[in-house]
């Protein structure tokens, strides 16, 4: 057994764990944050991507003991208001949560720009790959604010999506990039038009 202490989304989490515990298991089972998904467990699908000290990694291929003392950000850490646990779901709380698509923008009160772009562009179908996609794209767009559609496809090469065919995910990444740069975000179905024109 080994004592490991991590800062997960600003909260200190420490535990005595088996040395074999993967970072993914630490985040899900010890920190209790199940937004990070266990997809393939062999560093292929990217559903478990999280940030460790500012760099995105596949948490299924990292031991928790390897990153002892690190700052970890998971998908839950991107949207501060979702950190407060909802222990009682009512019609009212749901009505408060779901606002018209147009109203959701990437602000600290709402969602991270990547998340809100995913929302607007319908880049989510079953949603299993989404946390990993969002974490990798956030890391990528912070480093490359002006990507081409091809760049985005290369950035998410290590993230598999079995539903969307990636088209809407790339749309969302382009919108998120624009929003993160501070450019005006295209309205309505404009992104669908661009996608059709450039074929990718």
């Amino acid at each position: 057994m080994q004592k490991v202490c991590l800062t997960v989304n600003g909260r200190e989490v420490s535990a005595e764990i088996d040395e074999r515990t993967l970072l993914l298991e630490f985040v899900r089972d010890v920190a209790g944050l199940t937004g990070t998904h266990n997809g393939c467990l062999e560093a292929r699908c990217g559903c478990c991507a999280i940030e460790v000290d500012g760099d995105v990694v596949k948490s299924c291929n990292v031991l928790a003991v390897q990153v002892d003392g690190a700052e970890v950000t998971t998908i839950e850490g991107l949207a501060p208001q979702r950190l407060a646990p909802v222990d009682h779901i009512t019609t009212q709380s749901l009505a408060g949560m779901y606002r018209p698509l147009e109203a959701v923008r990437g602000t600290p009160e709402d969602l991270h720009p990547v998340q809100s772009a995913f929302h607007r562009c319908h880049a989510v179908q079953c949603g299993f790959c989404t946390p990993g996609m969002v974490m990798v794209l956030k890391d990528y767009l912070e480093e490359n604010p002006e990507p081409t559609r091809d760049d985005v496809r290369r950035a998410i090469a290590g993230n598999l999506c079995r539903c969307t065919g990636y088209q809407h995910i790339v749309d969302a990444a382009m919108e998120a990039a624009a929003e993160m740069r501070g450019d005006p975000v295209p309205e309505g179905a404009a992104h669908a038009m661009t996608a059709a024109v450039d074929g990718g």
Partner: protein
Amino acid sequence: MRPFTWLAPDTTEEAVALLREHGTGARVIAGGQSLLLAMKERTVGPSHLVSLGGITGLARVTTEPDGALVVGAATTYAALTRAALPGWHGVLSDVAGDLADRPVRNRGTIGGALCAADPRFDVPALAVGVDAVLRISGAAGDRTLPAAEFLRGNGITAIGPDEILTAVVLPPLPAWDAVVFEKFRHRVFDAAIVSATCALRRACDGTPAAVRVTVAGATATPVVLDVDAAATAADAADLAAASFHPDATDEPTRYRRELVRTLVRRTVDRAHTQQGSA
């Protein structure tokens, strides 16, 4: 995964002492991107893991007074991608930035790739291609070894059970005027099926004085071909293809042979046209 004991030394000497103490059951772990995959499948089950993560100085990129580039073994691909390396040394950044995928590049290390000695990995191929030298620390003292002698087979290296690879040393910029790396893979994040490296040095009048063509992926270890400096790209490609299992007619071998031919032609062609960068 089989149970193991976690050891996190602060210095290379401590790490070597731990390896010596725990014998052949102990393994070195840097980023763990290859080792952990194997451990999860239980194809390896070390009794002790000695982590290089806590050793400062192993992830540094420095230049020697003679111009040689010393890359710490625990330097990640991502760090290499971001490093602004001059001249042909920049090929290391290009190669490191175009393998696996973004999250894996943030953990995977150059030394890990060499010690994994997977024939499909790019870094061992490039290290042999530019005639890099590896620095190894061990209980019996430090030693250096050319990359070509370090790689002994698929997953087999010349490193001893109580030794640690500490750095990869690329020769100084004047050693080559152009270095070109090409590879083929089906999907962007796949390991290469075949890769080729061409390192070229020019004479004063601009004609090629020395050419080093290395092919990897098709064989257990990278193969350095005996190519004449004056050979054209097409000649080098034919020579490379002819030296790769010339008698085999099965499809996988023929497929790889054509890849060898194409990639060697491309690298030599590109090296010939590339301007001197030193």
